């Protein structure tokens, strides 16, 4: 399997570990990524609020690049790891598909730079591809070190399953939970799956953003619930969510008086561990904190394919 790939700016920066773990996991599952050449900013959530036509045109240029890489009439599935990019690209895909009035205006914009969109792109997020493309069954078969006993809080964030996505329920998504179960982990029941993490309310540091106090309150509520319900780690599928939840735990502890020290990782890192990849290949050394509870470390078991590196207790 091959997918044209749109990384987005975050995974080139703070989210490097996401891209590293993604690449390692997909390679292990025989999936190749072809990064779009000369991709540009997706517009994120900022461009939309300023000028809808330009925001969609900006994202649409990336869709055109994806089509250029796959000539013909077949649909093109464009993979992206970031929930923000996913929403922006998907919004462009839908806006240009639905025959909305904005379509011709965007088309004229693209024409001005010699581009034409053929509406062949289906934007897909990594989580969607792991669960529905590759499939939890295939991933389960590849597991050599199941994360047995690891209690995880599956955090989807606010952009991943809405407003544009259609691969999971908008309010009570379950795809990540199913994926975590497939690799042996135990997802907790919690009501914060799709709450906002504070997103772009944070700036470079939590107290110089647009409304840092609000952002801190939002991400704190998520972490506090995860901790309260006994989660060992929070699983994310977005570089922004991951950073916001991981980086400001000391500030939260100071500000709210609740002691927080939670591992916040990428969905691909947990899958990578379970299928026996090295921590370094998954960018775990880059994480600000990474502490899985003793006794719940990934444990090597014999795999049906005999790929387990270490065999303990059969």
């Amino acid at each position, binding site marked *: 399997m091959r997918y044209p790939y749109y990384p987005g700016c975050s995974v080139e920066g703070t989210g490097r570990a996401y891209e590293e773990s993604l690449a390692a996991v997909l390679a292990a599952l025989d999936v190749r990524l072809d990064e779009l050449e000369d991709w540009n900013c997706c517009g994120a959530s900022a461009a939309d609020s300023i000028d809808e036509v330009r925001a969609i045109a900006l994202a649409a240029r990336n869709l055109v690049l994806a089509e250029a890489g796959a000539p013909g009439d077949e649909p093109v599935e464009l993979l992206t790891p970031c929930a923000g990019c996913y929403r922006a690209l998907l919004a462009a895909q839908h806006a240009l598909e639905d025959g909305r009035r904005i379509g011709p205006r965007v088309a004229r914009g693209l024409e001005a730079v010699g581009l034409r969109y053929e509406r062949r792109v289906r934007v897909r997020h990594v989580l969607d591809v792991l669960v529905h493309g590759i499939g939890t069954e295939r991933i389960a078969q590849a597991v050599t070190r199941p994360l047995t006993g690891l209690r995880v809080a599956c955090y989807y964030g606010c952009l991943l399953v809405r407003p544009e996505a259609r691969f999971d329920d908008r309010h009570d998504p379950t795809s990540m939970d199913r994926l975590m179960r497939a690799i042996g982990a135990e997802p907790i029941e919690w*009501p914060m799956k799709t709450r906002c993490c504070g997103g772009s309310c944070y700036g470079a540091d939590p107290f110089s953003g647009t409304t840092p106090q609000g952002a801190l309150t939002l991400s704190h509520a998520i972490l506090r*619930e995860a901790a309260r319900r006994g989660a060992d780690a929070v699983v994310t599928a977005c570089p922004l969510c991951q950073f916001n939840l991981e980086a400001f735990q000391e500030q939260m502890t100071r500000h709210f008086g609740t002691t927080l020290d939670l591992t916040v990782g990428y969905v691909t890192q947990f899958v990578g561990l379970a299928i026996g990849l090295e921590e370094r290949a998954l960018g775990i050394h880059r994480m600000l904190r990474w502490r899985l509870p003793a006794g719940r470390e990934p444990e090597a078991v014999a795999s049906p394919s005999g790929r387990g590196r270490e065999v303990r207790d059969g």
Partner: protein
Amino acid sequence: MAEELIPDRPSPNGAPKIGVYVCHCGLNIAGTVDVHEVVRFASTLPYVTVAREYKFMCSDPGQELIEQDLREGLVDRVVVASCSPLMHEATFRQATGRGGTSPFHFQMASIRELVSWVTEDPEDATEKAKALVAAAVRRVALHEYLEPREAPVHPDVLVVGGGIAGIHAALTLADAGKHVYLVERESTIGGHMAKFDKTFPTLDCASCILTPKMSAVRAHPNITLWTYSDVVSVSGYTGDFTVRVRHRPRYVREDLCTGCLACIEACVHKQAKYPSEFDEGLGKRKPIYIPFPQATPPVVVVDPEACIWFKTGKCPRPCIEACERDAFDFEQTETEDEIKVGAIILATGFRTFDAGRIPEYGYGRYPNVYTSLEVERLLNSAGPTGGEVLLRDGTKPRTVGIIHCVGSRDVRFHAYCSKVCCMYSLKLAHMLRERTGAEVYNFYIDMRTPGKGYEEFYDKILREGAHLIRGRVAEVTDEATAPEEEGHLVIRAEDTLLGTVRRVPVDMVVLAVGMEPQPDAEDVRRLFNISCGGEGFFTERHPKLAPVSTFTDGVFLAGACQGPKDIPETVAQAGAAAAEALAMIDRGSVRLEANTAFVDEAACSGCKTCVGLCPFGAIEFDEERRKAAVNEVVCKGCGICVAACPSGAAQQHLFTDAQILAEIEGVLAYA
């Protein structure tokens, strides 16, 4: 062009004389179609002797125009270009008849529904109207002189659905001396109303007012009550329907069972462990059960999915032993009855919105989130808790939040207002306070309480101290952000009067689920050949002036199958449907279309294809002459024989090949 037309029966003076009357329908037509131009054009068509326009052709003076022209001999055939046959064909046919010719010397051109309402460009609209007028003129020139037919009306009535609507309609008709077949698919009549504890705004006990009517149905000599039964086919026409009803086996003979319930006591299942459908799954029943004590008929039912005898074939069956009346019959199978009725009343009701479709409200995830119908059962003294409001862990709630408009007024689900939820939510607020002393919070979008005594009821609930928060609820969560929220469900909503977001911790959440069509409403619609709107409720013939009739003559609507409504409105509509059916029956006959089939003997080859196809047995075959003949009294004008006849000998009045081709040519010749 004129010489191509060969009228079947020339007027006494030779060629037909056609009058064309173009209606403005206020601005409905004239606002888009250039009526003067259509009239000018019509006057140039062959055989058209009079072309006029009028503001409202359906009004008395409009009809009088037609009658006068006919009486004065200016015309002998009539074309009215106006609304649609459904709306006013009967009106203009009668006017044509009063003018002294056959009412079938009339043809309508639909230039409102087919033109002005659906065409934006005035020029396009005018051209299309002209084409349709040309077609009607060509067609009417070939109309035969036919007499109207009358058919007798069968005096019996079928009522489908035994909720309060069906019960009321059946009793009204039966009291008027008509025989009624009441068909209900559940094992008891009573419908949703039987599940309620009290009814708004008077707070009278639902059972106390319903069960006497249920018993009256069973006792009435004019009512045949068939429960656990479904209508499987309907054929025929208004005044003369043939209906097949299938009875599902309950494995207990209805004529013998007295409802003593000794068998339930004796069942090898000592504990009731199957969720009771009647109690919304909150209570349990055995494999042999009766839905509720006042079930009508009071006959037990065996659930073959749960009964050990049916599952394994091994059970001592103490139930049989316990029955003093020998009512058990484990060999029972489905049976069918075929009945004849003149009119049908559909009272098939509604279902409540599936609250699980709104995951943010937590139904199915949090045990203490209930639907309103579940709470009705908790409040009911014959319910699973004996009328005590207990949460699933057996405790009493001290705070309750009621969320209005669940599934209603929500573009994701139903755009419409379910009409009853505000009132029943206020009723539940009152009763929950009364029974538990709990603080009750109602979250509403708008408070809708129009109705006799309804606003006063709202006022009473307010004065009692219920908390009303105006705002749509965002979510129900068990995330606690403060000590007082620990261990509670938290309702998050914007309080639009206060202008702030509220978090209200409660022990119990009640979702005021809206009303939606029955899941099989589409099948019922097809079975009875009626129509339904986009949301799936059955469509009345006219929203204001024919609210209980349908587009199929002889089929009437009552209750929530036509749209959300409360009990008083349902009963009123059921009475109206019964009255309409009565009027039809007491008239004794219905007017039928003159569109019967006939056989052109010269062309008939005697192949008998038509004889076997006729669903009404209306075709006789003369063996000696080897010719088929249609009995026009029996023929319903379905046209099957016409379509099937290989030699074109079978034809149909008002739909002869010549007439239809002339109509098509009219449009094409103009285009």
